[in-house]
């Protein structure tokens, strides 16, 4: 059985159709990269999968381990094992990072009928995961993402992923705004979390992230659909030729969509 099966997904934002029949299947342990020009619907896909408000699904289905994902609240999706690493992690003053993470983990465990962790066992878990992400203790004692640098915010996302241990991680432009050192650190964290039963959907505009997180499959998202799929060589081809070559094989795509204009 597929872990994630997206069939003919159509979605609107503020009345405008962004996803226009997107289909994608992800098996356990696979890493799928979704690439595409600006405005193609990459972030919309990430947001629809994680249940953000304001995204209206008009057609199609999303099954996650056989369950109708779209029928679930965001917190239920998280507890079922879906994790979204945000493109812009939110700063939440007044909420302690450790407290937040323990509340999240225990809420998920409670949903799944598992025993909640007391603070001792939780701290032990956190210490193990800190090593993976090379995050300093000090960040844990601060408010969630408050005053974090861009790199710290992204590393904190991956650190949360390490603690919550999702089945499916969606990385929404995790590379954006990172210098090469920060990018490497984030990629190392992701790679440390790869496992035969954990899948990744890596949404990115640039190929360079894929130098560090090697995908099993690369898909090109343009005009609200996946128009090309291949292995990692497809990413290299996009890097060399840009998105414009797609117009030759997909004349139905307007030039504007491939150029990344949001018009």
């Amino acid at each position, binding site marked *: 059985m597929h872990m994630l099966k997206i069939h003919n997904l159509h979605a609107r934002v503020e009345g405008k159709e962004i996803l226009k029949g997107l289909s994608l299947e992800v098996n356990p342990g696979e890493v799928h990269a979704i690439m595409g020009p600006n405005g193609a619907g990459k972030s919309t896909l990430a947001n629809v999968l*994680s249940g953000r*408000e304001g995204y209206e699904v008009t057609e199609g289905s999303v099954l996650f381990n056989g369950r109708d994902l779209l029928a679930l*609240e*965001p*917190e239920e999706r998280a507890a079922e094992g879906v994790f979204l690493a945000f493109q812009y992690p939110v700063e*939440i003053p*007044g909420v302690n990072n450790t407290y*937040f993470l323990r509340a*999240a983990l225990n809420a998920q465990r409670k949903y799944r009928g598992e025993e909640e962790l007391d603070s001792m066992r939780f701290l032990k878990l956190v210490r193990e995961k800190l090593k993976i992400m090379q995050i300093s203790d000090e960040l844990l004692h601060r408010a969630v993402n408050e005053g974090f640098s861009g790199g710290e915010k992204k590393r904190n996302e991956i650190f949360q992923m390490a603690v919550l241990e999702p089945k499916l991680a969606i990385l929404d432009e995790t590379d954006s705004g990172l210098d090469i050192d920060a990018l490497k650190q984030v990629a190392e964290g992701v790679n440390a979390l790869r496992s035969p039963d954990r899948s990744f959907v890596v949404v990115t505009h640039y190929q360079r992230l894929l130098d560090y997180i090697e995908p099993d499959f690369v898909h090109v998202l343009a005009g609200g659909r996946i128009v090309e799929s291949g292995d990692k060589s497809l990413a290299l081809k996009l890097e060399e030729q840009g998105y414009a070559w797609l117009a030759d094989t997909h004349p139905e795509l307007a030039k504007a969509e491939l150029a990344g204009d949001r018009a």
Partner: protein
Amino acid sequence: MTEVQASRTPFVQAVLDAEGAEASEGTGIVWLDTARRENLDAFLATGLPEGRSEAWKYTPLRALAQRAFAPADADAARAANVDAAVFALPGVTGPRIVLVDGVFRADLSVLDTLPSGLRVEPLSVALTLAPEPLRFALAARHRRDAADAFLHLNAALARDGVVVNVAEGCTIESPVHVVYVATQNDVAWHARALVEVGQGGHLNVVEHHVAIGDANALGTVVSDFVLRDDAVLELVLIQDASAAATLVRRSHARVGARAAATVHAVELGGALVRHELTAELVGEGARFDSRGVFALKARQHIDTQMDVRHQARDTTSDALWRGVADGRSRGVFRGAIVVAEGADGSDAALSNKNLLLSAQAEIDTKPELEIYADEVKAAHGATIGQLDERSMFYLRSRGIPQVQARSLLTLAFCRAALGSLPNEALREHLGALLVAHLPTGPAEA
């Protein structure tokens, strides 16, 4: 006998009836009996403030005026079974004075082992032993204005209260716990508090309002805090009255040279609550800091009126208030700062931020700044907003259910006002009280 206003509301009639029943029972202290009589006359002449009163504009008293409150039954108050657990507070162990329905209860109070330099006693006892030092406060005249109706009522009818004194240069470590318990229905109770910190003295006070059951009484409390030069007062106000209570308070701080008063206020309970918090910075270098949170739900109405007057050079005031309103509640915050002529070099800051958790809730906030001095630093601001959708989604995307996410974000919002409370155990407890009080249901559309 007394001049009575033409349209006598049930509220006023009940006060008049009670006075008639009590007849001419005096205290034997001439100035006190006179002051009580004058204040009663003033109240009967003006009645409760009406809609046209600017100071009461956002807190209409029409419904209250239709209620008739009998005086609290003093014998019942003395006999009422009050479990000390209702006012137990972590981090607050030490002297305690408890008034039940406005009546002092020695059995619930802890006054036998006071540290040297500290005096805590019920007003009724202080009046018996040595009334003269209380004369200045108790015989003070208030302007004859309906806006001050509750001041008159309190001055006329309060038979007991709290007297706290700290001797010059004495530092009192453990906080003095002043507890007001309401137990009776359909009655009015009144209490008067007089707190004075001598020169260079240091005092912590926790004023605590609680109830047994869902008492729908009216309570009035008028408190004076006098800080002599170089004195320090840390005052924590915890208003956790019953959901049916009406509570009207005036707390006035008079701050001397280089003295500093800090107030942390948490307003949780009550159906109709008004707190007038006023401060006069009368000595050079005096300081008044206030931090407060009011959290409302259902049909609660909580009104905080803060008034700070800088009357001397180089005085400082800093106010940081947070309001949260859910359900069909209404919160009112007015923060007025006046920097008087001659109070040069003063520094005044006021911030009031509010969170509306439901479309039917309402918050009225009004910062006011009047400056008549030179080289003054002043900043004030007020905002009203909703929970941030992005933050909500971030928490939920990590598995935190909506109700818990709302509560977490709301508490985080309030924490700005409580974070500076030095007593950690008490701070944690107040955070927990807020969480327990805050809404747990989904947002109303």
